[in-house]
């Protein structure tokens, strides 16, 4: 079987015909395989969902226990129709996985979802998996994106807090993954005081702690006490919620903060380059390491990566999937 007949984009999302399932579907389908719990990849209303245990639990937290009629925890290899599937850690957020599709005869296809190769204390590291077709994101698919050492970025945050001891520091970070990563990084950089979190981050922070990830003392941002470091989803900065803080330093943790115009657009005073996606060196090194016969690119700045593949003599094509955000909030 040809790769194009095994897996192809449809209006509902990426569809595996011999297995009769969708990966990260955009609309409710009979059977969905979900790479990770971000809202643009994991949506409610599918009849059956297969994902890692943690992703299923995260979906239940976000959408309620009835987000699907049938849950299946991905463990080992599973036979689905005419293919075998297995889930492998992606290093993106807690529970995130790549999905390997192995047909009885034909190329092995690895759907990496969103992935990251920098060490991340809040999730398992990316596992390189041998494959013939590698389906990759290209969120940061330009050579300008070289994420600095995240601990150094956390140190910049702490340095600003020391420079302005009277100003609360509000860090914008999305609720699943980034918030917990920023907390863990601040701890690793030496910040041991209580950190205040916006209500929208609470359930997922609690869940990380239940999963054995140490986040240190957390307090509610509605009653922050002496907490100088406050985390909130970026959308909160445009709401009256932020008005309770006197003269805050607005920070934002994202790979996009590499580019000054992006940081300015958001009105950020302290841009922190902390990303849960591969940067350009990691992206290109991963393709080199896996050495697939072909690279398919799902979303992001794919032109840069396509050009790189062309220079390297690697067959590549864009899938032009719509509906996935660059870096969801």
């Amino acid at each position: 079987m040809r790769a194009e007949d095994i897996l192809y984009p449809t209006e509902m999302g990426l569809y595996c015909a011999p297995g009769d399932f969708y990966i990260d579907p955009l609309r409710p389908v009979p059977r969905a395989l979900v790479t990770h719990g971000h809202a643009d990849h994991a949506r409610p209303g599918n009849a059956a969902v297969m994902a890692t245990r943690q992703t299923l639990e995260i979906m239940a937290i976000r959408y309620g226990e009835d987000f699907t009629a049938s849950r299946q925890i991905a463990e080992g290899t599973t036979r689905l129709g005419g293919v075998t599937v297995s889930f492998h850690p992606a290093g993106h957020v807690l529970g995130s996985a790549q999905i390997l599709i192995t047909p009885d005869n034909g190329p092995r296809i690895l759907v990496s979802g969103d992935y990251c190769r920098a060490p991340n204390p809040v999730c398992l590291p990316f596992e390189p998996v041998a494959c013939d077709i590698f389906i990759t994101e290209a969120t940061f698919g330009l050579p300008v994106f070289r994420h600095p050492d995240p601990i150094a970025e956390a140190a910049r945050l702490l340095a600003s807090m020391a420079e302005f001891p009277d100003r609360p520091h509000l860090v914008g970070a999305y609720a699943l993954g980034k918030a917990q990563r920023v907390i863990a990084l601040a701890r690793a950089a030496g910040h041991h005081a209580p950190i205040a979190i916006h209500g929208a981050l609470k359930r997922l922070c609690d869940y990380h702690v239940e999963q054995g990830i140490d986040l240190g003392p957390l307090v509610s941002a509605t009653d922050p006490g002496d907490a100088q470091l406050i985390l909130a989803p970026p959308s909160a900065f445009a709401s009256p919620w932020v008005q309770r803080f006197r003269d805050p330093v607005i920070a934002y943790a994202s790979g996009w903060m590499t580019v000054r115009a992006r940081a300015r657009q958001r009105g950020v005073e302290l841009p922190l380059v902390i990303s849960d996606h591969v940067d350009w060196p990691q992206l290109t090194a991963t393709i080199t390491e896996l050495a697939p016969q072909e690279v398919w690119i799902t979303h992001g700045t794919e032109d840069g990566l396509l050009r790189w593949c062309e220079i390297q003599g690697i067959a590549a094509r864009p899938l032009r999937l719509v509906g996935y955000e660059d870096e969801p909030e």
Partner: protein
Amino acid sequence: MKAFARLLERLAFTAGRNAKLTILAHYFAATPDPDRGWALAALTGGLDLRQVSPSLLRRLAGERMDAQLFALSYDFVGDLAETISLIWPEATTSGPEVTLSDAVALLRDTGKLALPAAIAQVLDRMTPPERLAFLKLATGNMRVGLSARLARVALAQGSAAQDSARSVEEIEEIWHGLTPPYTALFDWLAGGARPEAAAAAPFRPVMLSTPITPSELAALDPADYIAEWKWDGIRVQAVSEGGMRRLYSRTGEDIGAAFPDLLDALNFEGAVDGELLIRRDGDVAPFADLQKRLGRKLVSKAMLQSHPASLRLYDILTWQGEDLRALPLQDRRARLQAADFDSDRIDLSPLLPFTTWQDLTTLRAAPPAQVIEGVMIKRRTAPYVAGRPRGPWFKWKRDPMVIDAVLLYAQSGHGKRSGFYSDFTFGVWDGPDLVPVGKAYFGFTDEELKELDRFVRKNTTQRYGPVRQLAPLLVVEVAFEGLNLSTRHKAGLAMRFPRISRIRWDKPAAEADHLDTLRTML
């Protein structure tokens, strides 16, 4: 270069004045000589380095990476220096950090032929933020939104933490005799000897006035004061000493390069205080005409002809080697009137005849020229002192112009105004449409800001990034100091110093003013 790169980055993203001062003061305290002095020079425009052209930088980048990837990257980032700093190949050589002093020396001393290789070599040794700082230095494009004055205020604040506190006026007084990397200045700020003002024709810190209201005025005896017009130009200090001629702004910036015609006219030995104006056949031209000559490095002959600069004097600080600043104003005025300036570009600001405040009120209500923005009231016995003391000098400005405009767009503020929609674009009617005529950020109280914020959130019709378009419902009274023709604004007009003086919750938008009303105010 790491500390300098951090400094530039923090300044570039920090809007608040106090926060900028804190960042600067910490940098100066933590950075050794001569690096901090070179940084001070870079921030205040005092560095004279070889300018590296964008084409040279493009060529260097082109030798190191695929043209198509470079083009895609540049397109995404939008700034050449930033793009190159980000895509430059990762450092392969590890050596000692390139200091700011090293970078300055390289850009100052390297010959044209050797420059490309020298630049590439230091870029190889830097991290991306350092590369950006270096390339901004090399292209002479710092863009951190910082005035030289603010840097000097930071120096003064830094010295206040020690026993050797120096005021910003003291720093300004010696500033123009100093040269980068300012080690003598930093030494003095730390308690060392005061640097001798080496430069001829130094700047003397300026005396400023405070506003006064009619009721406050009533408590004063008119016989103790003189009054003169407040001319709407630029307050300057003209110094001609020992063959050196300089024209300073009131914050001590040397603006002489833009006014060679006036420099030529400084045929005296002394330092005088006055208003820079554009004058044609004795008539003073509007402020907009003066604006055309500001900030230019070269002034064309045609511009010198059509926009001749002149000086209208208020005060005299030194004359033929004698420092007159300690004298009472009335004595200084006598010396000013006795002095011979020998130029038709220089005249004296006339004193206003009055015996009661009512006389002055009448004069202020009907000034003889458009370019008068009120009256100055000065105590006869006051010496000339630096800064803005309350008492000796008052400004009593004419009443501002006002219009009723409709709020059209809002954007949220920074720092203390984080989360509040505090920056407003307003417009007036032009036929059936509302056209934007200006922006205002202040004039309202904290309580009114909350009400405006609530209005913005309830009446947003569209969002463009951080900007909200508003339903055209709310009328505000906008006060402003003057109106200029402008090609930059859609309405063809630009207001000076606009602020929201009143919120007209009661007034329907349809009753806001029309563009024609504004035009008649021109």
